[in-house]
Every structure is written in structure tokens, then in C-alpha cells.
């Protein structure tokens, strides 16, 4: 196993969850003993797991009778105030608006429906450094839900789309989504031409936000 494989496959998480077959486990151990980056990650993960195993992560305010209760990460929507769908909906509306602005030719013709359902393709941290395959929507536009992997940032996110050979084809600035929500981006079909593979890079000020660019290929619907 090399560093890229370890990062792309969420190796340390699978290791902690005992999801690795013996051979892969040994290969990963061999790697993290030699890779400073992965060793740091492994040491932090080890401290976290041991701390949690010792009961240090328990929430004190939970009564004993309720200890077995489960709070879903994706609870059913009960009200607008508590809805976790709000960031998604807001981002989708923004994406549609941006789509109207950026797609050459309207996304929907005047004779078509007044709304359109978008099916975002998720780019997760696991896909960093390797190609994800995304499906084009209306007029070849692509809607991406970029999982930021828990990264925190303060002001704005600058994004750049480029072809595999480094030629920038689109860029812009987005407001950071709510904590845990993905960043939704729509790319016009008119700019996604002339390359098989595209690279998305996120910046925060002068630095690069993500440790590796997101790479994706566009598949016709």
C-alpha cells in the first residue's frame, strides 16, 4: 500500500473499524510505520480510539435510562427550523440560479417545466486523487456535491475547474456551506468539452483547501 492508496481508501478508518482483511491490514501497517503522514494520522486515531474505549467520549448529560437512545445523523425532516435539508436546498437553489447565469442557453426552455430536479454526483474525500465518474444532466451540465470531509473554513471558498492538462475552464467563489453540508457546484455543459478528465481544486485565500484535487470524468446520461 502506498500513501495515495491509504488516503483514497480511508485506510485508517477501515483499520479502526476492523474492516480490513489480514493481508491488507499487514500491508497498511507496513506502510504507516514508514510514512510520516500516515503515522501521524494513525497516532491521532489511536489516541482517539483508546480515549473513546476508556469512556472519555461519553456525554455526561445523558441520563442512564436514555443511554440506549440513538440520534440519527439524518433525522426525518420535521420542521423548517430544524431541517438538515435547508443547507442542501439553499445550495441547490443557488446552484440552479448559477446554472441559469452560467450555462450558455437556458437550462430549461420556455416550453419546458418550471423546475428541474438535479441529481448531484458526490465527490467524497475517498475520491480525492482518483477519478470519480459523474453523470451529466440537462444540457450536459454537471452538478457536484463536494464532501469537504469535515474540513472547517472561515470566509469563502474559491473553486477552480481545470482540464487534466491544467487549463482552467471555470472558476468562482462560494460561501462555505453549513457544517457537515456539502458544497454544491454546477458546471455548464458548454465548458465541459475537450477533455475526458477534469480537476476541481478548492482554495481558501492563498492556500489550497484540499490536500489533493478532486478528479472526475463526465459520463453521458
Amino acid at each position, binding site marked *: 500500500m502506498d500513501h495515495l492508496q491509504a488516503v483514497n481508501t480511508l485506510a485508517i478508518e477501515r483499520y479502526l473499524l476492523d474492516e480490513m482483511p489480514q493481508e491488507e491490514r499487514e500491508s497498511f501497517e507496513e506502510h504507516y510505520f514508514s510514512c510520516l503522514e500516515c503515522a501521524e494520522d494513525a497516532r491521532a486515531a489511536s489516541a*482517539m480510539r483508546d480515549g473513546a474505549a476508556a469512556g472519555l467520549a461519553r456525554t455526561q448529560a445523558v441520563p442512564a435510562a436514555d443511554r440506549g437512545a440513538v440520534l440519527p445523523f439524518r433525522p426525518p425532516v420535521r420542521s423548517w427550523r430544524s431541517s438538515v435539508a435547508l443547507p442542501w436546498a439553499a445550495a441547490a437553489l443557488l446552484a440552479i440560479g448559477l446554472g441559469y447565469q452560467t450555462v450558455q442557453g437556458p437550462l430549461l426552455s420556455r416550453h419546458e417545466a418550471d423546475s428541474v430536479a438535479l441529481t448531484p454526483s458526490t465527490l467524497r474525500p475517498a475520491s480525492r486523487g482518483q477519478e470519480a465518474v459523474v453523470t451529466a444532466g440537462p444540457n450536459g451540465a454537471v452538478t457536484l456535491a463536494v464532501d469537504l470531509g469535515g474540513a472547517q473554513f472561515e470566509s469563502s471558498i474559491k473553486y477552480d475547474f481545470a482540464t487534466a492538462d491544467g487549463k482552467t475552464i471555470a472558476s468562482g467563489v462560494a460561501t462555505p456551506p453549513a457544517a457537515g453540508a456539502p458544497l454544491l457546484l454546477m458546471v455548464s455543459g458548454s465548458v465541459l468539452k475537450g477533455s475526458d478528465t477534469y480537476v476541481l481544486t478548492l482554495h481558501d485565500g492563498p492556500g489550497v483547501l484540499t490536500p489533493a484535487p478532486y478528479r472526475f470524468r463526465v459520463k453521458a446520461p
Partner: protein
Amino acid sequence: MVGLPRLPRHEFDRAYLERLIAGDPDTEAHFTRYFGDLLSLKLRSRLRSREQIEDAKQETFARVFTSLRRKSGVKTPEALGAFVNSVCNNVVFEMYRSGSRTVALEEEFDAADERQPGADSAIAAGEDRERVRAALVALPTKERELLTWLFFEGRDKDQVCRDLHVDRDYLRVLLHRAKNRFRERFVQEYTE
């Protein structure tokens, strides 16, 4: 954006190796701390008790130091990590062969080691524990609950997925986020 922090680290270069061979106390302390963490992580799934893990770690370190001072085993500084891992594999294999009952750790793992550590290591362990606790307490409630279910209560992972309405892939992503946040807080605790 707050970048992912790094735990304090040394470069394993020729100078580091020479200090280690010469018995420099600071370098030895760094070495045993750094690789001690990695060995604990590795050994936890292979040995039954803290005592066995400590024995395996101490035996590994003893063999590595002996080998280094005989100038055998490590050809280049970059190979140091692989060498430690390899020596540990041999130690574990010998423990298996010696007839030790070695099964994966369960809940009893956290039973206290009755052997008394030295005063310095006890203080260090106490400080570390407080840093770990502070970093865990700073996590969002849902992430703390997830870690508790997985590693304290040992809940079935498929059941955890069903309860959270997520699949196994997404469970890894949730753990990834919790780990990154923990790591950030943990390093902050060290630097403050």
C-alpha cells in the same frame, strides 16, 4: 480554513539514527513514544491484554536497540519504521508460538495494568489522558456518541449504520470527520 495540524515529529535521518545509537535520552524518549503509539495500535488487535502489549513493545524496543548498536538491521534511516514493524512481527509470532493465549482484545482491554509505572511516565500518562479527554469533549455531541458506540460500547457496526440511516461507506466518512476534528483539537491541546 484551519489546516489539518500535525503531531510533533522528527525526521528520521542519519543524525537521528546516530543519536539513537549513541543513547541520547531525548532521542530515545522520542523514539519510544513515537513508535510506542504505532505499536500499541498494531498490537491491540493481536494481543489480549495491556500486559501482553507492554511486554511485546518492550521486547521490540530492546531488540531494535540491540540491533542498532550492533549496526545490523537498518541500512538507511528511512528504513527504521519498516525495521521496527518487522521486529514487532517477529516478537508477536514468538509469543504465539510460546503458547500464549492471544486473541483480539475485547472490553477487558481497559482493565488497569497492575504493574506500577515510573513516576515520570505516570505523570505523562495522566497529562495525555487529560489532553485526550479535552479533545474528545470538544467534539460535537453526535461524533462523541458515535465514538462511544463504536469503541466503548462495542455496538454492532451494521446496527449503528441502521440507527444512523447511513451505509458502511458513510460510516467511514463520519469516522474520518471525527478523527480529523479530534486530531485538530488534540494538537491544540499539546501546543497550548
